[in-house]
């Protein structure tokens, strides 16, 4: 595939691995922020190719993993009790809520639909004027513009039966939260390439300076990831902490002005709960007052009862990189992809699921 196979070139991969090995003089802990990067590291078997001194920590950038339990319960409530057409991205469906997942709710008769685009949900609202249509707006700065745009479209069409249940989170505050944790030991970051495609790179300079950590904006293909790791290690070895852009073929310093305009128009930055991490100040988007009519949280009541996490799940410590997934006593025992205790075991981008696939190879093919 043109423009993809170039970044999967085995020869180039070997060269980068050799180069990383050559310049690494001690142990380094590097966090890849984005779940898409985690997925690619695992899918391509890159973790097993890196020198043993390089420890990759899988960050909180898995939207499925950090969506709080009470919002999943809320989504299920809307589908079951309000009889809404609940639209969602695919991998959100299997994440367990307090009692069940959206997939189970669907099996029990709720109208839950998998969509690729929130604009499809607006069309559904137009075609079903007697039904409420709710889009479960999950994701980072990457999915937020399209989700915001769906609200703009619905407003222009004068639809009164469309709303979004926002669970939008922001990368920079999460990076700071992870760095602020005393137990965390992250020395460098691969910043999420696609988030920066939207937002640009300006937000990361202050973080690199304040915490003295190198931050390299990185893409998702094997060569991207290895080049990003090499650039990070080089900075670490040289004692530099700058923002560098590995993914310059896609990421411009100013990001995507059109997308940012939509974000500015539709959303405002608020405090937000992160599953496993708790409340992080000013770390998420909520709809602005003028779009309140499209805000499912204001339009419908939240379900009663308190959402409680499994006390056995150590997702928070995993997401901060304090423990590795396989260090959790439940890993692979009480908690597996088909019976997950926490969200990181669900998504293929989740650190636990990623390790569940990878760790077995390491253990059994040694």
């Amino acid at each position, binding site marked *: 595939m043109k423009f993809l196979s170039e970044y999967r070139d085995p020869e180039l991969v070997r060269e980068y691995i050799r180069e990383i090995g050559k310049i690494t003089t001690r142990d380094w802990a590097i966090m890849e922020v984005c779940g898409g990067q985690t997925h690619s590291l*695992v899918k391509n*078997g890159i973790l097993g190719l890196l020198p043993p001194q390089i420890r990759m920590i899988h960050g909180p950038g898995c939207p499925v993993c950090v969506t709080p339990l009470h919002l999943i319960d809320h989504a299920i409530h809307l589908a079951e009790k309000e009889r809404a057409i609940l639209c969602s991205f695919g991998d959100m469906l299997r994440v367990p809520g307090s009692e069940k997942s959206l997939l189970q709710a669907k099996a029990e008769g709720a109208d839950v639909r998998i969509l690729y685009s929130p604009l499809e949900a607006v069309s559904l609202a137009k075609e079903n004027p007697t039904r409420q249509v709710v889009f479960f707006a999950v994701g980072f700065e990457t999915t937020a513009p399209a989700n915001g745009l769906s609200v703009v479209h619905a407003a222009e069409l004068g639809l009164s039966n469309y709303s979004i249940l926002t669970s939008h989170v922001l990368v920079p505050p999460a990076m700071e939260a992870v760095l602020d944790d005393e137990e965390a030991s992250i020395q460098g970051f691969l910043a999420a390439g696609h988030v920066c495609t939207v937002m640009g790179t300006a937000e990361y300079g202050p973080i690199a300076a304040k915490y003295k950590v190198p931050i390299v904006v990185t893409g998702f293909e094997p060569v991207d990831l290895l080049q990003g790791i090499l650039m990070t290690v080089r900075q670490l070895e040289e004692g530099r902490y700058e923002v560098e852009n590995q993914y310059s073929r896609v990421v411009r310093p100013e990001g995507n002005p059109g997308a940012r305009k939509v974000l500015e128009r539709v959303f405002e930055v608020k405090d937000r709960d992160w599953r496993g991490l708790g409340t992080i100040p000013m770390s998420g988007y909520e709809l602005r007052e003028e779009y309140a009519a499209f805000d499912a949280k204001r339009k419908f009541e939240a379900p009663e009862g308190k959402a409680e996490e499994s006390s056995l799940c150590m997702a928070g410590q995993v997401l901060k990189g304090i423990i590795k997934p396989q260090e959790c006593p439940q890993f692979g025992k009480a908690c597996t992809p*088909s019976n997950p205790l926490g969200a990181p075991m669900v998504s293929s981008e989740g650190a636990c699921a990623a390790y569940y696939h990878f760790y077995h190879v390491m253990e*059994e*093919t040694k």
Partner: protein
Amino acid sequence: METNKKSLHWECPMPELDFDVITLGHGSGGLLTNKLLDSGVFDLLSNEYLDKRHDGAFLPGGLAFTTDSFVVSPIFFPGGNIGELAINGTVNDLAMCGAVPKFLSLSFIIEEGLPVTRFWDILVSIRNACATAGVVVVTGDTKVVERGKGDQIFINTTGIGYTHPKAKIDSRRIGAGDKIILSGNLAAHGVAILSVREGLAFESDILSDTRALNRPVEALIERFGEGVKLLRDPTRGGVATALNEIARDTRLGTEIREDQLPIAEQVAGACEILGLDPLYVANEGIFLAWVDASIADECLAFLRQTDECAEAACIGEMVEEHPGKVILQSSIGGRRVVNMLPGEQLPRIC
């Protein structure tokens, strides 16, 4: 006497299960389907033929017998429709038993309101598929259900065939060193269906790979006989699930190479965009063959000369290490486990 009496008792207690309702995942062909099969509910029906859990049953007198139901939505899709799928599916299940398919039954469950022209189109393609595969429909049934009680049309087919005298299809004959051949490009059917599903529709000219495989399989067995140890058509759950089932059953490890997996560029591209792993996407016109290493190259060359299997490739082999696990060597030289999926593959967010 006591046990005999017990087995005749009709009110058996249900085995303890960790799920209350059947979900779509239980029909995905993946881990949940296996969980349902392993849960003990089918022990009610246990017998020596059923317990082999092959694609079809081997009956006395050299007969192979299989059944399959087809509920695909939409019923017309790029490259085919539910009618030919129902014929090819059962023909292929028999072929995977090393059998020459002969006779089919055909049952329709039709939702009222189905335009008769569509029904006719389905019947015509059924007839053509039968002619291509060399089978005949010898009995059938038609039921109509109320609107809303079905999805336009469901089809069940059952098939009987004669096992080829040279065939010796048995997973117990598989040993370390045996090669795994995939007969053609993977993931075409699943992606073709997705491309026209509501909410996911995208423009492409990817066609389903639905086709009868009995002729190349028969030729393969005729030529190589016992050297062909096992055949599987990786339908629901895809190639990954079929490989996992065999690794589990044989208690051997499986090694496959990503750079050897045959896939059409368009299909690979669609999978990239949709966030799907082609190894888990359904196929309807390819098969996996486990063959003795000594004849693997010859088998491959032989298959590539056939119309149906021009893209065949040797994708890996069975090994002593990591029993029960399928390990993929990625194109860049990394390694990962290819697990069975818990349920249906769900598109990723980003």
